[in-house]
């Protein structure tokens, strides 16, 4: 909640006289919260406090709103068991963007910036186990578990944005850290690609309307 308030206040404080404001929707926001690629969408606000800088805040959610663990498509061995499992990911988060335009005019063109935010990530892991030993009991770790965790992505963004005059577009790429990713307690059998990543990348395409 405090994070929400911080972004909102920041947005309001910088809402100076020359500013332009736009509303954007990110149609494809690729973000690696885990080792797998993850498609997300977002909606947000853009605001240009000066003719070289811009700030924005986005609400981000996973693309599949009703994510379920589904098929157990992954298999691994753990503790003498063959483990088959599926993972469902739900993500909700906010991200604050701060941008500096490299080209001189009109808050448009190539930019470089930073981002910081948080993600509330819920990973539901549904495993099935089998063992070669007859009558082995199902281990405790082999139950469907849901892990909720909070990570704080922070990093650098690069992109190309058009002028915030009526409608505009933004194509971006970002790379940075997910602080707190190592603190999540996940099922021990998970493959590396299903664990939260400390280093992540983002890329996406957004369109917006402003003036």
């Amino acid at each position: 909640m405090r994070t929400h308030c911080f972004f909102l206040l920041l947005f309001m404080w910088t809402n100076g006289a020359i500013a332009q404001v736009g509303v954007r929707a990110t149609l494809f926001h690729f973000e690696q919260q885990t080792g797998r690629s993850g498609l997300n969408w977002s909606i947000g606000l853009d605001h240009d406090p000066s003719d070289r800088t811009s700030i924005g805040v986005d609400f981000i959610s996973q693309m599949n709103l009703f994510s379920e663990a589904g098929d157990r498509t992954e298999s691994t061995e753990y503790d003498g068991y063959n483990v088959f499992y599926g993972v469902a990911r739900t993500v909700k988060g906010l991200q604050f963007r701060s941008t500096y335009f490299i080209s001189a005019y009109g808050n448009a063109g190539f930019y470089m910036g930073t981002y910081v935010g948080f993600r509330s990530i819920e990973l539901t892991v549904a495993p099935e186990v089998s063992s070669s030993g007859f009558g082995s009991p199902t281990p405790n770790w082999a139950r469907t578990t849901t892990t909720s965790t909070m990570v704080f992505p922070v990093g650098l963004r690069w992109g190309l944005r058009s002028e915030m005059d009526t409608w505009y577009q933004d194509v971006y790429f970002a790379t940075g850290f997910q602080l707190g990713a190592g603190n999540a307690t996940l099922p021990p059998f998970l493959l590396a690609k299903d664990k939260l990543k400390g280093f992540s990348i983002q890329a996406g395409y957004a369109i917006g309307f402003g003036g």
Partner: protein
Amino acid sequence: MYIRCLVPTGLLIILLASGCASIIGGTGKQSLTLNTEPGGAVVYLNGNEKGSTPFTYSYSPDDGKEVVFELRQPGYKSATVTVRPERNNAVLFADAMLFHIPYLVDKNDPRMYALPTGDITVNLYKETPEVAMRQMLPITAVTTDLPTRADLGKLHGKPVKLDKESPFRDLAQPELLTGAVSSGLRDTWIDARVVRMGTTKGDEALQKAKMYLRPNVKSLKADLSGERLTCYGPVELEMDWKVMSALGKDSVLVSIPQRTTYYANGDRPADVVNAAITHAARLFAEEEGLQERLGGHYGTSIALSKGGEVLLAAPPAIVFNSRREMIPALVKAVVTIQTDKGHGSGFIVSSDGFLITNEHVVGNESIVRVKFEQGFTLDAQVVKVNKDFDLALVKVQATDLPALTIGDDSILMLGEELFAIGTPLDATLGQSVSRGVLSGRRELDGRNYLQTDVSINPGNSGGPFIDEDGKVVGVATMKISGKGLEGLGFGVPISVALEMLNIRMTR
């Protein structure tokens, strides 16, 4: 683990600190000096009086994102100057990289903002006095004595030469500068229009104005600094303003050499030359005694276009016994004037064959055919024309012609009945009579006209307007026509016609 946390935290602190102006201080100019030419103008900032020029100003973020100065000086038009302080790019970059936190810290710190220049000089222009009539002065071209690759001073520390790649390239095509001269003369007593000689409209304008303006740029020296797209500083311009006679080719009526200094205040470099010439044009209009000199030349030209005096014996009045007989008697003094290009109307003003008509009826002809009401046709000589007032005096070799009595147009009352007699549309419709009233007295382009709703049509031109007493009071000259327009005819008052043809009636 600690080291992993300490390094990014340390970097963040260093970056935050470097982004805060309150720690590193400002990097640009935080104050400027505002001057005016002439000095001593009162400076208003956001509507509040702050002092007088030269005025030193230090920026405060409370003054807003744009600082608008208004400069007032008695007898001069007030001027405004807008200054946009900016955070420098390095600081903006630090702001952006640090999530705008330094921006929030330093938002109200004036040291974060740099002013675009340290010195601004603003030219103030004199108030334009109310004038009854503006002097028409067409501009045909701007010329220049500057050779190719001429030295035009410095821009952003680099020398500027005259060529087509230069930011001052407009000087290489001086014909593009006529608009700048016209802009400078706007809202002054000079009615300056850009015209092209040799075109119908251009020649008409020259004919009306009797003179034209041909400015010549002799030299230009700039010393401009600023950003890539804006510049500040003086531009010294040497010009020669030549007013040429439209009557005699290459005849210079007035030549005024002029040296001016224009101060660029955030202009685009490509606009500086135009702005300097606009400024010089404005000062040209403020030249002491120029209005009187040009007025004198204009008066002389008008007098010249009247030609020599013509003495005409006042004709015996056409006799009619009643109002009913008046018009049938008067039509005998109205004629159809024919040329190869068409026909118009005219009326006899002396028994020995002098007729008045419009200049546009006779055109450039020296001999025209005159068809009388009685049916016969005579050749006539065009004695003189006055293009300014669209009048012509024509003479047929005949005697004892019925002639119209000259009336007094000054005593005509609004709504008083007027008749027009002429040959509208086709020569077979000669001596057609129409009737209306005097709708008003108008001044168009500095010329007086009688306005009437009498029905006049092409071919009526040059015919008489006749009052209720049967005397000629005007010469039908033009009508305003168009969809939905009716009854807007205009004629030259007979007194003006006689004066502009320099005709004196004798008893």
